[in-house]
């Protein structure tokens, strides 16, 4: 109850904004994040640490690609699919991008309906998000299979710089793992929403704390982050 009060009753109207607001919030010897619950603040801090992990992966990829004297394989043709008698460049990756963006859209709507206490719509939208996420992982599995059959290995490939395979499997593999964990996380929260746990304040089996619809928003933060990371992978690995 206390936490609900903290997050919902505390308005921001009486507090100063801008730089003055930052200084007063951080120096007030209380809590820095005034109208944000610790659950949400901690998810943000976790996502920040995850940003550094993916940042380091992309950086190591940049370093190997810039320092190799062997030409880098052309992603446009490597990831092309043979459709209707011609090679369409990068088409699978484009479809994966649209699938993931769609899942982010349904997730944002789920958060919205959650706060409106519309249990049914929230659960259905979360299940749709999970289904799109699972589709994404399935397409990624297809892509991995195709590349492995074509001879891509972490230590070499038929087209050029050997580091291509290592970067590809590491970066997309780590991202795919995040998506998979997200799908499981989504299914767990969707089940709780469907049962009405957040309406009745049922205690969680592990934390024994009362659930709130904010759990859906925190779950959403993780899911949008997974989409966000894909934006960077798409730009730097597939398009560059």
């Amino acid at each position, binding site marked *: 109850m*206390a936490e609900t009060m903290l*997050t919902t009753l505390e308005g921001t109207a009486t507090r100063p904004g801008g730089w003055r607001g930052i200084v007063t919030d951080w120096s007030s010897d209380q809590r820095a994040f005034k109208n944000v619950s610790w659950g949400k603040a901690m998810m943000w801090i976790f996502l920040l640490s995850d940003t550094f992990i993916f940042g380091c992966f992309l950086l190591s990829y940049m370093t190997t690609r810039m320092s190799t004297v062997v030409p880098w394989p052309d992603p446009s043709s490597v990831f092309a699919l043979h459709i209707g008698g011609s090679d369409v460049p990068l088409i699978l990756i484009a479809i994966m991008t649209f699938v993931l963006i769609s899942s982010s859209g349904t997730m944002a709507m789920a958060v919205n309906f959650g706060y409106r206490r519309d249990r049914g719509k929230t659960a259905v939208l979360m299940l749709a998000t999970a289904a799109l996420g699972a589709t994404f992982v399935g397409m990624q599995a297809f892509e991995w299979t195709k590349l492995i059959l074509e001879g891509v290995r972490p230590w070499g490939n038929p087209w050029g710089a050997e580091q291509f395979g290592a970067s590809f499997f590491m970066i997309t593999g780590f991202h795919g793992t995040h998506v998979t964990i997200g799908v499981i996380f989504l299914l767990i929260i969707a089940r709780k929403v469907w049962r009405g746990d957040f309406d009745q304040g049922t205690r969680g089996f592990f934390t024994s704390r009362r659930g709130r619809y904010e759990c859906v928003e925190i779950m959403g933060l993780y899911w949008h982050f997974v989409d966000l990371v894909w934006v960077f992978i798409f730009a730097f690995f597939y398009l560059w």
Partner: protein
Amino acid sequence: MAQTDVQAHTLDLQIPEVTAGEASHAEGQQHPIKVYLVVWGWLFVLSAFSYLVDYFGFEGYLRWFLILTFMILKAGLIVAIFMHMAWERLALAYAILLPPVAVLVFVAIMTVESDYTALTRMVFFGPG
């Protein structure tokens, strides 16, 4: 729950200041559905644009400029609207958004480093 209760009151003395008017505020982040649909649409359009960069085969600085522009716009929309950062207090926004700038410093360092590595490789493996 009692423990959290005590914590809440000792950690934040501002609670008594909260007026009845604020108590009637809606729970959590509530925004019109239309905002999400518009952002969703823009993300589709921007993704299509970045795919077309590859499809039309733009090269060189134009390609990199377009890729980065669409990437930053998409990332900005996701963080600001879908993740609600636009409506959070600046104390949280800066705490989360400023540290990744350190990654850009790392990028600069590794650019210099990989140029050096490439140079030594060319000297070592290159023709006599």
